[in-house]
């Protein structure tokens, strides 16, 4: 099935999605990778409010290549980064914030229970940064540039960002983990 969704996402938006479905997203996505995850969790623990709203939000595991022209940020290339690096921090993130979708590549480990009834994991084709930039219309904000360009949180306005494949749905189905299990079986037969 193919879905065209608009952010912020509701629970019903994501409950209809099954692993393997195709999604195109329109609206705001927040980039966040290793350092941004660590800072979000650190601020939450100290009770300091975040400078952006993660309710119904889409988090994109991405360290974009940006260019500042005439004091305006433009997206040059913005493909996904390896999501597994965020696997350990994701359960706490989802416990504290109503994030509805994560976008990344390569799959995540031990997060399907944290995603259940709350969030989906979507994969975007790794390395397709020029293609991704075509559907990013505007950079509406940037936070925490002190972390460096790749690690900052960029608010990106997208139109029909995709095709995204549902890697882990909100019912516990994990497409990439199934592929991995089958690969292990095939390996044992070689």
């Amino acid at each position: 099935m193919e879905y065209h969704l608009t952010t912020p996402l509701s629970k019903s938006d994501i409950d209809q999605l099954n692993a393997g479905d195709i999604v195109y997203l329109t609206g705001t996505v927040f980039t966040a990778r290793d350092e941004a995850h660590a800072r979000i969790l650190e601020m939450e623990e100290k009770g300091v409010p975040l400078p952006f709203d993660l309710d119904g939000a889409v988090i994109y595991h991405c360290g974009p290549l940006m260019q500042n022209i005439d004091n305006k940020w433009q997206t040059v290339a913005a493909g996904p980064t390896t999501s597994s690096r965020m696997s350990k921090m994701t359960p706490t993130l989802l416990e504290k914030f109503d994030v509805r979708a994560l976008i990344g590549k390569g799959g995540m480990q031990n997060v399907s229970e944290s995603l259940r009834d709350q969030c989906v994991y979507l994969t975007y084709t790794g390395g397709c940064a020029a293609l991704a930039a075509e559907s990013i219309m505007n950079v509406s904000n940037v936070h925490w540039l002190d972390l460096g360009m790749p690690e900052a949180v960029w608010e990106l306005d997208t139109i029909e960002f995709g095709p995204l494949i549902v890697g882990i749905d909100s019912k516990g189905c994990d497409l990439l983990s199934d592929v991995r299990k089958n690969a292990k079986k095939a390996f044992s037969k070689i």
Partner: protein
Amino acid sequence: MIHKITNDSVVNATIDILKKAETQLPSDVIDVLKQSQIRETSPIAKAQLSAILKNIEIAKERSIPMCQDTGILVFFVELGRDVHLDFNLEDAIVEGVRRATKIIPLRPNAVDPITRNNSGDNTGVGLPDIKYEIVDGNKLSITVAPKGAGSENMSAITMLNPTEVDSIRNFILTTVLNAGGMPCPPIIVGVGIGGSFDKAARLAKSALLQDINLKNMTKHERNILSDINSLRIGPMGLGGDTTALAVHIKTAHCHTASLPIAVNIQCWANRHASVTLGGDE
């Protein structure tokens, strides 16, 4: 008469090959990706390969980096023994990297390993990584291979016992299996066998520079490629026929008590470009 190699010509050549490597994939890689897209039987996998091919076209057309991870910059320099340089070659390459970071632009990826402070211009202690080789002749050849972290992080090295030659294939397959979808498959697998701990890794990395068409692979390499693809990890780990595009093995003599094996994994964006300066007019 011999073409004079100047500081400026090296700086400009460095910028040129960086621009080419980051925005245009070598034709052998594109050809194999196209063939794989046609052959692929899984619809999800086919869609991933189509996105990759579309991305390659957009990057070339708009002259922008194909991947936001423009990598750390690895240079392979071949310096002819008859070349005389009246400037510092390393400084010229570093200057080329600094300028290319702004001009192309490239993502600043170089950070201090402990403080994680970003230098902002892709240079730093030991970066760019430049490997030198002295060769015959009066030419200077420079190759750049930008290396992204997604695939580099999935690479592995081991020191096997000398009697474990039969385990080499197992180590290569285990490395690919553990990597799963994380290094952006379809991948290219560079293997270094022998040498020393660091030599094996250098062999594996330089193996990635070879032309990846099937004709350029030995029977042994093709067999390992077929084993890898039978795992059905598929493009981006979403399942499918196309897990790897090529396997290249390089060997070197090693200590009688050693058997070092390095597996350097490369994502589909097997970026590299070269230039030759100097030579006879």
